[in-house]
């Protein structure tokens, strides 16, 4: 038992990140009654699901999936979402923001964006299904308020995050104790960077929706971002639709998720582009994070991821 192993078998950065994420999934499976994985079909949640599958192999993933659907999604992503769910024999719950708007629990915002409207359907679904652990694909490198997030993040019965009341997270011992009605958000990708995510997607050969790779699309320029036409609206006066070769770095509500001009048509080209990029993925493509200096912190406090 005292033999030293060769350094070549030591874990590399991706191996360490994978091992850490698998450990987190198994801790939650061991300690919580009703966990759920947030799954939108985007790259981070697809990666999350891939890691969950590896954590419980050869048994099936012992959790259902939940998608809070703004109704402003890209068709390609919804098609991909449903195909992945069917392929792995998983159970998917969908909370449609439209249903909340239709019965008056939510009101459409004047600017038409539905990202901030996701919080209420998310919290309602957590309460309705009595979910006690909710896996999200959030990473600490995304944004300053997320940099202070724990891997196990305790939320009140109102889903709120109080940064000053977060528990110290020591060693790899996670404290998931919570009172009835409270829940814990769990972030297995906390320590991954955007580049780690793409390098791992390449290494594992993980399939993603096509819109992450370059394609031609009708887009218009607003606030320095290329937005696409969709159910969320189209070009306003002074904005012109034009055909561009673009791809998406993040996938969210179409009304506030911009495409970037890119000819990166495959994973190798995307990695080269991400490595050379001078913009963060949220800064480049998410209008919702530009609202104020503390936009993400405010949304997190309200119960957003």
């Amino acid at each position, binding site marked *: 038992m005292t033999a030293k192993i060769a350094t070549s078998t030591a874990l*590399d950065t991706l191996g360490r990140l994978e091992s850490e994420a698998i450990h987190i999934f198994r801790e939650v499976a061991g300690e919580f009654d009703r966990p759920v994985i947030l799954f939108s079909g985007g790259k981070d949640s697809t990666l999350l699901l891939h890691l969950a599958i590896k954590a419980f192999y050869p048994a099936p993933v012992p959790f259902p999936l939940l998608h809070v659907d703004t109704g402003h999604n890209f068709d390609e992503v919804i098609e991909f979402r449903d195909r992945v769910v069917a392929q792995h024999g998983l159970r998917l719950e969908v909370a449609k923001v439209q249903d909340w708007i239709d019965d008056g629990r939510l009101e459409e915002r004047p600017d038409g964006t539905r990202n901030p409207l996701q919080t209420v359907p998310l919290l309602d679904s957590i309460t309705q299904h009595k979910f006690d652990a909710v896996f999200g694909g959030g990473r600490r490198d995304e944004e300053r308020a997320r940099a202070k997030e724990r891997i196990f993040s305790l939320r009140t019965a109102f889903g709120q995050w109080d940064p000053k009341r977060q528990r110290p997270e020591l060693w790899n011992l996670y*404290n998931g104790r919570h009172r009835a009605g409270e829940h814990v958000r769990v972030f297995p990708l906390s320590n991954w960077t955007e580049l780690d995510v793409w390098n791992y997607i390449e290494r594992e050969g993980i399939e993603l929706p096509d819109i992450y790779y370059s394609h031609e699309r009708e887009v218009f320029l607003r606030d320095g971002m290329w937005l696409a036409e969709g159910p969320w609206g189209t070009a306003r006066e002074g904005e012109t639709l034009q055909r561009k070769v673009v791809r998406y770095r993040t996938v969210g509500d179409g009304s506030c998720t911009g495409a970037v001009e890119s000819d990166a048509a495959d994973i190798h080209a995307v990695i080269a582009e991400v490595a050379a990029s001078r913009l963060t993925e949220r800064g480049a493509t998410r209008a919702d994070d530009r609202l104020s200096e503390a936009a993400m912190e405010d949304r997190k406090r309200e119960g957003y991821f």
Partner: protein
Amino acid sequence: MSDLLRLATAGSVDDGKSTLVGRLLYDTKSVLADTLDAVHRASADRGLATPDLSLLVDGLRSEREQGITIDVAYRYFATPKRSFVLADTPGHVQYTRNTVTGASTAQLAVLLVDARKGVIEQTRRHAAVLALLGVPRLVLAVNKIDLVDYDEVTFSRIAKEFTAHATALGYTEDAVVEIPVSALAGDNVVEKSANTPWYEGPTLLEHLENVPVEPDPHDAPFRFPVQYVIRPRTAEHLDYRGYAGLVAAGTIKPGDEIVVLPSGRRSTVTKIDTADGELTEAAAGQSVTLLLADDIDISRGDLISVAGNEPKVTDELDATLCWLAEKPLRAGARVLVKHGTRTVQAMVTELRDRFDEQKLSSVDSPSSLELNEIGRVALRLAEPVPLDDYSFSRRTGSFLVIDAADGSTLAAGLVGAPLPELDAASCTEGGDIAAQDDRALVSPGP
């Protein structure tokens, strides 16, 4: 050489930690243009002439308002040589618990002092916490060196005083490096400074890129806390029964004899499984699934150990606690102890001593342990648990103390007494601490 270094920063409030971290990110070009634009805008809004690099790090509104860091922030940067995971921990006394958090997983800590003030109370406290938690290497960044006119004598005096303190805490001299820096001006952070011709050592980044990293404890005896039992019950895997976990220490191969604790039942590993196929060997840090030759009762909370070199199984525990809660600890307290994957009820039967990190001495039989205090206690556990000393293994020698009523984490627990025992009589407040009791000297290690 390892391609990943986990490090933590520590230092008192206003020593410029956030600025130093901002400088590291900025000078390694880890800050992307839009983030930088936001910092430029916010700095201009505040009427500052130059960008305030601390804004890169201080993410919460109350932090920016008060100009201090409140919570641990994790930062990621990379150079061609290494990737870094940096835990930036706050310096304010009331947030020392965050230093404990950052230190618990760090392989190196950067401790800041203000060159005008030198080694102060918080420096000693933080160094003691870092030593206690077994952070293997320290860097003392003597910051604001520009404000003492890049004076070599001032730097040498601070470096000498700190080395004495660190040595008394159990650090060897080659585990501690002092560097004169100005985070604001950039001296010796990434670029070598022309203002300190008398300093011949590495810049901070050069040191971080080249410092040896203590590997996972591969050559320690095998330890494997069972997280979850994998039973697919599918036609293809009808009799599959695998024990999932992360190897905490050592290595394991098929054919190795193991013992399951606390039951003491023995078996042999038949297979090491992963989603990528079987392994011929698994080592510390890897998440795997073990299959055994015998159908014995094993569940979450059990520890699989190599046979013949097992941890002691006991319901009496001597431990050191870093008390992290507002309400004080008193003898007789009923708590939960989370060790590995097992949580048991426990009672604190005795407060043995309280560590005075200023004098590096201890006070016997204190009536309580207050927030941020460190002390040795005796615990009685409701059931026997397999325990290693913290100085033997950070992963299997550590535990959480949890409030059974509200679930909060009350303390970081370390099995045994990882800090060296010190001779109080030879320690003076000024910090000239050469003499020590070397009988019980334990070097800080993983």
